[in-house]
Each structure stands twice: as C-alpha cells, then as structure tokens.
C-alpha cells in the first residue's frame, strides 16, 4: 500500500512551519502621511520588541495550504451527516449570497439606525417569524448560540423572580439533558437538580413532582427530548413547574421536529431558545458561528436584553425601525452590538424560502426520514446488535444502543462509528444521551433523500457483518482517513496547544 501510494505517510505541516523569511502575501497600501518614527508616536514602555512570529508566505502557497487542509474535512456537501442533536440539514447557497450583499456584510454595527433601516427591518421580521413559530410573542436575537440563549434564559428567570421578591436556588434538568443545560445552570448561579426519565423516555412525573419545590427557579427541557421522543405529559409538566412558581425553559435544539405542528408557547413554555445554526440553516462552520435567539412570554418580556429592535409608527409601511436601549428592567447586554446579524440574514432567507407550508413540510419530512431510518435499522441483522433505546415512534431523531454489538460482537459503538468513516458517512452522535448504554443518536434531517437513508442502513449492516466475521477489522478502523485513530489521552496528558518555533 505505502509502496503504491508514496504520499500515504505525509505528515501534517502547519502554516508556521511553511514560513520562509522574506516572503509575503500582503503588500501594504502606500503611506500617504509623514513617516514619523514609531518611537515618537508610542511610549517606549508599550513598544513591541520583536514582531509576532507570524508565517511569511506568498499568496499562492497560502491558498494551497488552506485549500489542502480543507480537503481533510468531511462535510455536509460531501455526504450523509446524521449527527444527532445537531440538525445537519442542507445549507442553501442562496443564504450565503444574501449574507454577502455589501448592504449586509459591510454594514457597521453602530451605523445610525436611520441608515440601517433594511437591517433593522430584517431583524424585526425575523423576530416576528420566530415568535410565530415558537408561539411566544417577544424575541431577542442577541444570544450568540444555544448555550448563550440558555444563559440568557436563566438570567431572565432570575430577574423575573427577583422582581417578585422570590429567591430561588435550584434549576431542574432531566438526566437526558444536553451538557450545556447543567453547565449553564451553574454559570447562572443555580444548583442543578436532576430529574429522572420514565420507562417511556419522558420525564418521570413523580420525580418531577417531588423535586419541584418552591426553591426551584426553572425546569429546562427539550421537547422532543434528546431521545427523539415527544413528552406526552408536557401539559402536566408545565402545570407542575408553574405551580412551583418556576419558569419552564425550552431548549430549542430539537425544534426541527415540530415547526408548524406544535409550539412551545402553546405547551406552556415561558422561554425558548432557537439554534439558528441547526433548525434555520446557518452553516456550522466547523464549530460556529451560530446564533441562539430567545423568545419569551409577556411576563418575561420586561427583562429582555438591550437593545431591542422595535417598529415605531404605522403598519402601512410608514413605520421606522429603532434600537430601543431604554429598558429599565432589562438584564442588560449579553454581548456586543446587536447579535450575529449575518446569521439572521441567512435564517431569514431560509424562512422566506420555505414559508409557512415549507417549514411544516420540513418538520414532517424530518420525522418521516427518522422513522423510516429507524425502521430500516430495526431489521433483523441490525436490531439484535443495535436495539432502539426506547421503542416508540420517534420524532426527528432516535437513539440506538450499542449494547448488543458490544456483547455479541465485541465491538463498541466507538468502533462502529470509526468504521463508518471508511464508508464516507459521518457517524451519529455517540455516547449521548448518557442514560443509554453505548448510545448512537441518529438524526437524518429532512434534506436527505431516501437513497441516503437506505445506503446508511446498508452500511450499518455491512459493518455489523464485518464485525461478526472479523471484529479486529472494525476495532482498528478507520483505514482510509487522512489520519487514523488519534491518541487523545496523550494529547490531554501533555498538552501541546500551539506550535513553537
């Protein structure tokens, strides 16, 4: 193999290691003002002594470096990406085009609102659309991602309770919750109390009742939950939570299942965050950017962050859009400026592309695709090894357990995931949610055609067959990737987190 492929053992080279003194990709514009020595303009104490060791490289080689790096990434435009909880749906190229319009991309955030009416109108319209989708009337677009939205939600909850003179110290999260939920609780100054899961995969109502004491500020829930199951008791849950004087928070990561079908606001949620980078097609960018707008009910509204985008004046096109900074009860600012506007543009374009009918259709197909793939993976030859964790109709995703494969074939979920890499599909989310042994969390999304689902089922079957025949083959996968299994333990033990000259 190595003999036939002379480049097979090529080592990664960083851009810094490609540097050669004297090369450059940048040429500065002409200096058109007096060339006063820097030492006359800056105090000696604050003068940098040596230039930062940035790479010296020409444009052609700079481009090659990053283009070549890029081709080491698997990506959504290459193939199937059923990463549960991440909603890896197609990212329309149209959205990139409109985001890049100079009127959007080159607009300064502090431009006088009088000269940014188009941007403010877009934000206002997006707020309206998101409010309608979630069934909650007031939206702040400011949070930068889902977890930022969660933090906003808990700070709002705190402000709400404080204004009422109530002191609450705990926040409930189900044991199926995403890690950001408990992490946020701590950052927001609350104590996490875990609520159990009932045999049907929903919240354990008895446990909830027991824990919903009056020092509880909030229950954070996602519905459908991280098992991909819609909690049938949602109304009862809301009742219990509200009776305890707590708010009910909706983690919107799974909103893709229910658009146009059911709304968190109608279920009794007080605060919702959206992941625009999941449900509303902002590309993930290899780990961001995203945006995590929140929507809230009337009673929470006074506390929303500043500034808010409002329309002043008539409905008949005469209205002006303003940034309202004057919100005395507001929790204040979560970040700079008005939020990730570039993300808003993309999500707004997506919402207008699909419209009311299209959004509903998207959710329906997302659920159809998930249930179809679930059915395909429940076939004999697969289900023995990867049984479904909770055997119910799922929503947009579902969770299998790799217990069978581990016990009967001696391959773990991790091994199966790594072998998938050789088949050029992205593995599902693995080992989450925590309460499922050897979990595989599979979310196909609505933008996949049936062939991709069938192909994935065939791949899973093929890997299980390989494992039955030769478990080592699977345990040592992958073989065809730019690198093979990496030593993560060594990386964490003796961390090398930058290149040194």
């Amino acid at each position, binding site marked *: 193999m190595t003999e036939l492929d002379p480049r097979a053992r090529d080592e990664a080279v960083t851009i810094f290691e490609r540097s050669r003194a004297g090369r450059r990709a940048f040429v500065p514009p002409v200096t058109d003002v007096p060339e006063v020595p820097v030492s006359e303009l800056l105090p000696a104490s604050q003068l940098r002594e040596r230039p930062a060791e940035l790479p010296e490289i020409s444009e052609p080689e700079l481009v090659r470096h990053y283009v070549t790096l890029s081709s080491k990434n698997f990506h959504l435009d290459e193939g199937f990406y059923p990463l549960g909880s991440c909603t890896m749906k197609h990212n329309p190229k149209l959205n990139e085009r409109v985001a890049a319009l100079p009127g959007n991309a080159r607009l300064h955030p502090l431009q006088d609102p009088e000269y940014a009416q188009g941007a403010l109108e877009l934000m206002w319209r997006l707020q309206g659309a998101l409010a309608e989708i979630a069934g909650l009337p007031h939206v702040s677009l400011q949070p930068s991602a889902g977890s930022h939205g969660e933090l906003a939600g808990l700070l709002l909850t705190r402000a709400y309770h404080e204004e009422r003179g109530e002191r609450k110290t705990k926040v409930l999260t189900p044991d199926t919750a995403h890690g950001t939920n408990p992490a946020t609780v701590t950052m927001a100054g609350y104590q996490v109390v875990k609520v159990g899961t009932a045999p049907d995969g929903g919240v354990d109502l008895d446990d909830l009742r027991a824990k919903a004491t009056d020092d509880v500020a909030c229950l954070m829930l996602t519905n459908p939950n991280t098992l991909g199951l819609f909690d049938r008791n949602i109304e009862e849950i809301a009742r219990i939570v509200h009776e305890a004087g707590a708010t009910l928070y909706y983690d919107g990561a799974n909103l893709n299942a229910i658009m146009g*079908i059911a709304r968190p606001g109608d279920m009794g949620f007080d605060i919702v965050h959206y992941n625009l980078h999941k449900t509303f097609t902002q590309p993930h960018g290899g780990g961001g950017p995203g945006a995590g707008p929140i929507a809230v009910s009337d009673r929470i509204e006074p506390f929303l962050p500043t500034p808010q985008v409002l329309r002043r004046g008539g409905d008949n096109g005469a209205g002006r859009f303003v940034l309202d900074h004057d919100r005395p009860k507001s929790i204040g600012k979560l970040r700079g400026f008005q939020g990730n506007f570039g993300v808003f543009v993309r999500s707004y374009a997506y919402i207008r592309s699909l419209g009311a009918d299209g959004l509903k259709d998207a959710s329906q197909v997302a659920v159809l695709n998930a249930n179809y793939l679930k059915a395909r993976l429940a076939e004999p030859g697969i289900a023995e090894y990867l049984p479904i964790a909770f055997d119910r109709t799922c929503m947009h995703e579902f969770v299998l357990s790799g217990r069978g494969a581990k016990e009967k074939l001696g391959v773990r979920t991790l091994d199966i995931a790594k072998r998938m890499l050789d088949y050029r599909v992205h593995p599902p989310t693995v080992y989450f949610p925590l309460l499922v042994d050897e979990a595989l969390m599979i979310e196909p999304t609505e933008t996949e055609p049936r062939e991709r689902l069938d192909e994935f089922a065939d791949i899973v079957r093929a890997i299980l067959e390989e494992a039955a025949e030769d478990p080592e083959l699977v345990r040592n996968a992958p073989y065809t990737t730019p690198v093979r299994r990496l030593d993560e333990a060594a990386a964490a033990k003796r961390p090398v987190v930058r290149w040194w000259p």
Partner: protein
Amino acid sequence: MSRYTSITEQDLEAMLGAIGVGSVEELFADIPESVRLDREIDLPPGLSEQEVYEHLAALAARNRHADAEVGFLGAGMYDHYVPALIDNLLSRSEFLTPYTPYQPEISQGGLQVMFEFQTAISELTGLPVSNASVYEGPSAVAAAAYLAKLETRRTKLVASRGLHPHSRAALATHAVGYGMEVEEVALTGEGATDLEALAAAVDDDTAAVFVQQPNFLGTVEELGELAEAGRRTGALVVCAADPLALGILKPPGEQGVDICVGEGQTLGNRLDFGGPSFGFFAAAERFLRKMPGRIAGETRDVDGRRGFVLTLQTREQHIRREKATHNICTAQALNALAGVVYLSWLGKRGLVELAELMLRRTHYAREALGLEAINPGPVVREFAVRVPDLDGLFERARAERVNPGYRLGRDYPEYEDGLLVAITERRTRDDIDRLARLVRERAGVAA
C-alpha cells in the same frame, strides 16, 4: 415538495409502508391534540430563490454600508480590507458546513486550523495558551470573569472605564449569574485608566481587574503599571486587546497580564452589522485546565502520524456538565479561520506595516482635525476629540456621505460633545483631509 427535500410520492408510500403507518400525521400521534397547532403558522408562503434574493437585496439596499460612505466609525468594529482569498476559503463547503470536529480522523482540516489559530493568538498576546475561539469580544470579557471566579472564589470585579461599554455591560449582566459585583475605575483627564483609582479599588475580595489596550477612547494604556497595581492582592489581570494593534504594541503577556481576550473582527472578518465575528481567549499556562471552550491539541495516530484533536475536553460541558469551566458549545470556528488566514496573509512583516500605517494616519488625523483631544496621549488607531458643533458636523458630513465617527455621549455623559474617530488602512489622507474640512466648515460658515 420544497427544493430542499427529496421525498417523492413514491418515496412517501414506500417509507410509510416500511414504518408501518398510514400517514405522516400518525407519526405525530404523541403530541397531545391540545397542544397541536390547529392552523397554519401565520407566515407568508414560500418564495422562489429569485424572489427571496430580490426581497433581501431590496432590504440591503436600504443600509448605508462602509463602501457607500467615507466612515470613521470604529468603537469596537472596524472597516478593514478583507482579502479576496478569505471569502474564497470560507465559501468552501469543506470549511463552511461541518460540525464541531468530534471525529478527528475526518476533521484534520478544521482541527489544524484551530491549532494554527491558537498559535497566532498566542504570538500576538504573548500568552502561551489560547482556545479556539469564544463568541466575540464583550462575552470573552465575561468569560474571563468566570475563570477568575473559578480560580479565586472571590466576588468582586474591577473594571476600567476604558473598557468598551459593551464589555462593561456584558460583564455586569453575567456577573449577576456569577454572584459577583463590578466596580468601575474612572479615567484620568487624559483619557487613560486612573492608576491610583485602580489600585485603590482592588482589595482582597477582588477576583479580577479588567483593562483594555488600546482603551475605548483609543488611548495606549501603561499596561505594565496597571497590571502591577491590579494583581497586588492576587486578583487576575485581564486585558481586552485589539489584536491588530498588538502587531506593534508590547504583548500583554509580557506585562503581567494573566488573561488576554478580545474582539477578532479586525482580523479578516466582515462588519456584518456586528456579527458573527469571534472572540479570542488567551491565558497563562496555569489556566490551561480552566479555559472556556474548544482547544485543539497536537498528538499522534496509531501509525505514529502527527494529528490534531479537541483536547482537555474534561473542562467542557458535554463531559463535565454542571462542573464545566464554561457552558460554551458552538463557538466561532469559521470566523477564527478567517482570523488565522488573515494573520498569515499579513505575515510577520505585514502586520507591523499595517499597524504602523494606521498609527501614522491616526496621529496625522488627530492633528489635521485641529480639535481639542480628549485623550492627547499616544493612540494607535482611534482617538477622541471634543467637537463644538457635533450635530452640525454630522449634518454636513452626512449630506456628502461622510460618517464622522462615534458619538461618545450615550456611553460617556462626561464627553457629551465627544467624537471617537477611527482610522484604518482604508481611510486615506484625502479622506482625513475631507473630514478636517467638514470640521472647519461650521454650519453656515464658509470654510
């Protein structure tokens, strides 16, 4: 069927059959009738690509963007030239569309970029460890406060009034959650952080001290002195810095700063009406295991080949949950990519050349305007002046598509007549002279 889905009538039938239900509606049976929406959501019907484009283009046309005026607006985000190769690289599906690299074997591109980014940030800040990005500038400041809380278990935060107003606001917002309080330190009459006031504000319960370099008014702070005063009682010293200015300024890490954070927009990111950009977060070695967010680390694969992984994940929410060092999950990887590509494009010499060009033009501009300086000392890319007829200047300037800068009044009542003027490599001497002319042309008075 929408243009983004693929399920034909035939597919539908076959799929429902395989699932064993008669209709898509049945799949939603778990949703109680009482919480089902019994109507269509109230949004307009879907549009063709062309119609969406035209609608959004019409909206965008109502914004006066940075190419449509000569703007001196900065105050945290700046009109820099972004080279074309950044657009090209960021538009590549390989960078644009993957998730956070949980499967390192098929994510070496993204992971190596993070590692390179960390290296570049470390070089700029003079601090050995950097994460792979946080949301943006002000929330990076707030993240530093959280680290200080975890590290010191103290409850007081001391912030210079030279810190960006948005950073101070974000700090205050987050501090409520952290159970901390923020005390502000005034500026001197020269627009620099008041060293004595800062020293006085720091006490045994102080978790961290926050300064900004250059500060919000553009002043180059005496960072070493501030840091020394700040850490007297064991508080962490946090500096928010403009990474481009660090091209010629002494690195915070060389001046006793523990944590350096900042807004990354100036590094190859669009203005985008304020986001997305990225925040950076660099710190001294001892904070490595308390850092927020993703960190890429170098390692080897089973065949001994060099590779990169997300490392020290036990800090993070998905592993550590309520004990995580921060709740951040999705960060700003694509924007950080723009950042490291931009820095590589500038290169070792280019960064210095660019910063020096800004420095010289900035000083030229302050002189050319001939106004009373709020901060008469050293500045790099921005400065504040008092304008006797601020409204008049804006009126005259707007009429000829010049944007004179940022009005300080809202954030600093003490500078009601203050104007913050930002200079980048895109503002030529001619542009500056034009602003100077507008300043001289008092309303109704010929120049």
